[in-house]
């Protein structure tokens, strides 16, 4: 299964779906190669940790492999794939929160060690600042309500059109516009609060 030649040439979506449903391994390989980058980036935007993003992106394709037989074409194949990526990433976040809650107990029972802290003091100052700034943005984004976060990431970070976002999130165009509007207002408020705290320090 892993020793496969490279695929060349384009395939129509419907034809590709039929081939995937027939268990064509070449079609599956093409699907993975075509979508892996965008799926990985969606996971990365939502999870912010490379290892987690890769793990969940792989899970997305495993899920596609298993459930392509049930795909009836109610939406575009790409929409369906991105929806799986978003949902799997959000499920991973929920699972992680649950594990974080259990971690003190797991450490007591000796099942897991506490995660090692990255040696930040070995990095150049500029990189530390950038990391902190990015962490502030992720923290602000992560504290948005789930639907606003999804809409903002798909729109601002992944450049999906409103129509595509509506299809991925199974909502309407005005729904997406409203979510994005609220996401921008809330995100701006949260980032202003962070910036305001650092203001006296930077002004001195």
């Amino acid at each position: 299964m892993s020793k496969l030649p490279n695929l060349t040439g384009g395939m129509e979506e419907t034809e590709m779906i039929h081939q995937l449903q027939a268990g064509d391994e070449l079609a599956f390989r093409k699907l993975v190669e075509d979508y892996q980058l965008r799926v990985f980036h969606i996971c990365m935007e939502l999870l912010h940790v490379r290892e987690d993003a890769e793990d969940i992106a792989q899970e997305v394709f495993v899920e596609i492999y298993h459930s392509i037989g049930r795909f009836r074409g109610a939406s575009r194949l790409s929409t369906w794939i991105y929806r799986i990526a978003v949902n799997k990433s959000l499920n991973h976040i929920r699972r992680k929160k649950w594990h974080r809650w259990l971690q003190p107990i797991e450490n007591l029972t000796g099942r897991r060690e506490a995660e090692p802290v990255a040696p930040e003091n070995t990095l150049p100052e500029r990189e530390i600042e950038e990391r902190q700034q990015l962490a502030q943005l992720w923290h602000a984004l992560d504290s948005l309500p789930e639907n606003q976060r999804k809409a903002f990431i798909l729109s601002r970070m992944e450049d999906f059109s409103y129509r595509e976002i509506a299809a991925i999130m199974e909502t309407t165009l005005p729904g997406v516009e409203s979510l994005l509007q609220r996401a921008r207002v809330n995100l701006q408020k949260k980032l202003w609060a962070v910036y305001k705290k650092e203001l006296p320090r930077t002004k001195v």
Partner: protein
Amino acid sequence: MKCKQCHKELLPWLEGSLSREETAAVEGHLAACSVCRGYAEYLRASLALAAAEKEVAPDPWFYARVIARLEKESTPVTPKAEGRGILQPVFFSLLLVMGILLGIHLGSLPYINRHDFPYSGQVIPQLNEMDTEPLEIFLMQ
């Protein structure tokens, strides 16, 4: 334009989705207000850093890893590994129930002990005047 209004417009301004008049109003305010200008720069830099994350590519062996996962899934799962996921919540639930039962037991202890106090049977009758009074009254009579 006030600072608060300007902050609301900053993200759409950075996205380039404001009308010409709105853009002019925001830029006019930014030219006059150093705090808002600094904040706008902070937002722009944060979003640029996030956009730079998109340049990170997945593992070059991504397809091979997906296939390896599919192959691993097709191998039968050992009962030990399968049961581990269930055992942990069961263990913690049992621990919780035991804790509640212990609490109930400890809570009921002082009530039982009150009756077993060693001096209660000896001291209280001597101090109880109601028990001796009938004899005194008898002698006086």
